[in-house]
């Protein structure tokens, strides 16, 4: 079996005396789509932020392509494209200027900026201030940002939040295209249908712990069985 591109090994996050994530481990392999699924407040975003180096774990290690975050921060960062969930666009920069800034920091050529804007359907809104975008458009701009340098690993936090059904379908198509090119995608979601449509493997997260790793269909059946039974009983 190939070496994993992302290894999250027994990471724990304690903040303000609370354990947000406890001894969580999972891995992602080249070309794979892994979904972190769990209810709100399960610890998915904390786990994702630790996986990309936006938040240091209290204990445990994270490595991308063998580069550990604490020891090789720049090598680690060069291999990741991260889409955050709670980003607010301030200031008066247009979508193109915002994306160009991120492209410059990654040494990506300017032509790629317009290409990425087109890929997420924002070419016509390129001159609009990003702060004036709707939630869905902001999500698409952040997704374009993550894809800019075409890194081997994309880590996306709730990428389909705020997207209309048309763009959810488009997102699925874009991610499938990326995996065909060999990119690995790890994303979090609380929408089972998105995980089922996209993921090769599902990592169930609940109360800060990784509960189970399984194929998408198996894991989702196990995870949502109590909900389905509850609904059945109610009807």
């Amino acid at each position, binding site marked *: 079996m190939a070496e994993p591109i992302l290894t999250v090994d027994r990471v724990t996050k304690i903040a303000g005396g609370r354990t947000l994530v406890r001894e969580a481990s999972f891995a992602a392999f080249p070309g794979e789509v892994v979904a972190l699924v769990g209810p709100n407040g399960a610890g998915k975003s904390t786990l994702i932020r630790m996986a990309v180096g936006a938040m240091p774990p209290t204990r445990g290690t994270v490595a991308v392509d063998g580069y550990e975050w604490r020891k090789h921060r720049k090598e680690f960062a060069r291999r990741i494209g991260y889409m955050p969930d709670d980003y607010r666009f301030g200031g*008066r920069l247009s979508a193109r*200027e915002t994306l160009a800034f991120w492209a410059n920091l990654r040494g990506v050529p300017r032509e790629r900026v317009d290409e990425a804007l087109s890929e997420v359907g924002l070419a016509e809104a390129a001159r609009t201030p990003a702060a004036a975008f709707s939630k869905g458009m902001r999500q698409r701009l952040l997704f374009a940002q993550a894809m800019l340098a075409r890194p081997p690993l994309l880590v996306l936090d709730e990428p389909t939040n705020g997207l209309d059904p048309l763009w959810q379908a488009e997102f699925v198509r874009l991610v499938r295209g990326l995996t065909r090119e060999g990119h690995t995608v790890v994303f979090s979601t609380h929408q089972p249908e998105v995980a089922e449509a996209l993921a090769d493997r599902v990592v169930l997260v609940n109360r800060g712990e990784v509960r189970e790793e399984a194929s998408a269909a198996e894991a989702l059946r196990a995870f949502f069985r109590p909900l389905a039974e509850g609904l059945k009983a109610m009807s």
Partner: protein
Amino acid sequence: MRSAAHVAARELRLGFRNPWAYSFMALFCLFSLSLLLMPADRLQEGYSAAAGSLLNLMLYLLPLMTLLIGSFSLASEKEEGSWDLLATYPMGTFAFLAGKMAGLAAVLITVVAFGFGLTGVLGALAGKAPDAGVLGMFFAFAAGLILLFLAAAAVIGTLAESRWQALTVSVAVWFFLIIAWPTLLIAGLGLLPHPWIKPALAALTAVNPAELVRLFVVVKLGGGSVFGPEYYAWMNWIRGAGGTAGFLAVCLVWIAAALMFSHVMWERRRTHG
């Protein structure tokens, strides 16, 4: 360095599109144009009561604007989630901080340069152009205040979790260093044994960037006597051969210390959470 240049370029863009910058520019132009209302001979003779009151006006405005704009800019990076994203980029923390501060300094210094430039041009057209040396000293005073208070703003923006916190702390720091300082200085020095007063005064003057720059500019304009005999050693030192170099060195130490502290705190947050 390239990352710092990109961050600075973004800061310049954001700065010149921020309505605050233009409100500040309008207010500053009003202040600097008041130079033209002074009798021409007063501006030729260097330091005068009129020049002193203009310096005081700048002393109120520039530190407050610099503290607010600088600390807001850093606090908003955290509040908007921008730093969380940038922390996943192959960019060092110091490049980020240096780029932010360089961009903000360029915006603020451009604003004051525009104000003094406008004064020079309008003065020349009206046939009462201010003395270039005096105008230059005013500009040096303004630029010095901006750079030193921007360093203080970096510390405030680093420690503040939100823009509200940055606003509150900036106003408190401005009030302490500009408004309350003389009263607190007199009260504090009065409590010390007599032999300690002079060294304490020297040390406290170097600690307050506003006092440091004001002292230097007033002495350079020839008005050092207004400070009284306690500052005699300072006057000799500033007027001496290495005075300007020494002053610049103290300013650099001040800025470097503030930036290093900010860097350590950002890095600590990045690696320890």
